[in-house]
């Protein structure tokens, strides 16, 4: 099940510094939405608002609404543990748990939520690894530490880990930033498959990547959403001159 993610008038502060200013954006289900913009523009912050990872840090404050389906997840009463189960996240740098084996990395979320045991656990781990196109490469090394895999494999392992708990929304924070072109290609393939079932929001520096994989692209600058639209349109006719400047490499 996938749900739309609707961001309404979202503002975000770290201490006194305003990082996001009145951002509104709708990421539709079964679509990839790409967030692009120069470093430090606030796109990662925007992403981390969606699973409320910022709540871990003192000094973060937020205004506005983020709706997943109909539910405003910024409500004080939101169960963050439950929210984060529903929203999977892939980080910029692959972060498999170094103390766990390949198998246990994927199983970690399942065990956390008590979703599967014994045989069904093994089956689901295998299914997720297959979905992440990693099974063939690791099926003989399931009990080896996840950290021994290559960078691209590690990132796919993280995707498998996130897939295992069946989230509704996938957040990806520059998932290919630390990978080589071949691994990047693997991941991109994977993302395309994921959008069949999930809502995917991806932050990327790489405009070609955004063009390749996303249906919608949003351009963020200095904490403001400059414009958002279908990727094909945005890349050809940017409505805002700043977007155009960025896309043509005159800025950033």
């Amino acid at each position, binding site marked *: 099940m996938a749900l739309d993610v609707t961001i309404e008038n979202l503002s975000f502060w770290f201490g006194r510094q305003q990082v996001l200013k009145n951002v509104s954006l709708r990421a539709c289900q079964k679509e990839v939405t790409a967030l692009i913009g120069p470093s430090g523009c606030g796109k990662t912050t925007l992403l981390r608002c969606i699973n409320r990872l910022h709540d871990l840090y003192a000094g973060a404050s937020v205004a506005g609404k983020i709706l997943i389906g109909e539910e405003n997840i910024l409500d004080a009463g939101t*169960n963050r*543990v*439950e929210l984060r*189960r529903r929203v999977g996240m892939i980080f910029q740098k692959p972060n498999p748990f170094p103390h766990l084996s390949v198998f246990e990395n994927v199983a970690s979320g399942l065990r956390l*939520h*008590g979703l599967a045991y014994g045989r069904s656990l093994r089956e689901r781990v295998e299914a997720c690894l297959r979905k992440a196109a990693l099974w063939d490469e690791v099926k003989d090394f399931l009990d080896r530490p996840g950290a021994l895999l290559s960078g691209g494999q590690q990132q796919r392992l993280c995707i498998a880990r996130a897939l295992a708990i069946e989230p509704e929304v996938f957040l990806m924070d520059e998932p290919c930033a630390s990978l080589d072109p071949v691994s990047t290609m693997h991941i991109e393939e994977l993302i395309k498959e994921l959008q069949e079932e999930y809502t995917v929001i991806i932050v990327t520096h790489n405009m070609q990547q955004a063009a390749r994989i996303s249906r919608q692209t949003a351009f963020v600058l200095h904490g403001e959403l400059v414009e958002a639209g279908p990727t094909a349109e945005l890349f050809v006719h940017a409505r805002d001159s700043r977007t155009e400047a960025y896309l043509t490499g005159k800025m950033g």
Partner: protein
Amino acid sequence: MPDTKWRLVKSFVPEAVCRLAALLVISVLFLILYYIFQRGAGVISPAFLTALPTPVGVPGGGIGNALLGSLVMVALGALLAVPCGVAAAVYLDQNPKSRLAAACRFASRVLTGVPSLIVGLFVFTLLVLRTGQYSALAGGIALAVMMMPVITLSAEEMLRLVPNSWREASLALGASKKQTVLRLVLPAAAAGIAVGVMLAVALAAGQTAPVLLTALTSIFWPENLLQPTASLPVLIYTYAISPFADWQQQAWGAALVLVVMVLMLNIAAQLFIAVKNRRG
């Protein structure tokens, strides 16, 4: 999911236990400090810090020579231990996987755990018995033996934090290994190494047995590195086990001075890191 609430509750309980543990630990430690300050503070005066000690029944004794003696021996120890310890750390950093490195690391760890009495005994046997002379020099050497492994292990840790890319850049510019280490790696790790040195100094300043066995003690000012020299821990030890109230009182004062000295060193180390971090 229905059980997430329960999981949050289950999470709260051990967290509360940790909070309680921290509260308990910190309050007990704070109480101990309070007690030392309370007993020792009344004794301390400028005269106490600068006068020579006096025997029981003669008022006005101070800890001036012990304070100076401790400073001299700790400085001497640092002077010997820092170059040697840092050099060993550089070796460990340059050849992290060699057998000698593994052995040296192991030896350092063992050395940090050797009871201090045994270190004192070692220097006593090798130096004091040979020369027939207790001396500040022997005391400094004993303290250096205690400080060296601490400095080596912490310095290695700090050197390891210097990014490899820096070294490679330096070597790529045509600098020799030696130049890279001396002009780039060591300065970059200086703040961290300094912290390790200060901790080692704090450790050395509190040692009783090694100093008693090597530098003995004295009621005079230290004038010569080759003569018996007074030190704070030995003075505290001797005074604390005497039955006389005025000596016991002075032992508390001296203990407070020692604690404050060690604490000051640590504060200095922390500020040093803070400043260095700030500068990048």
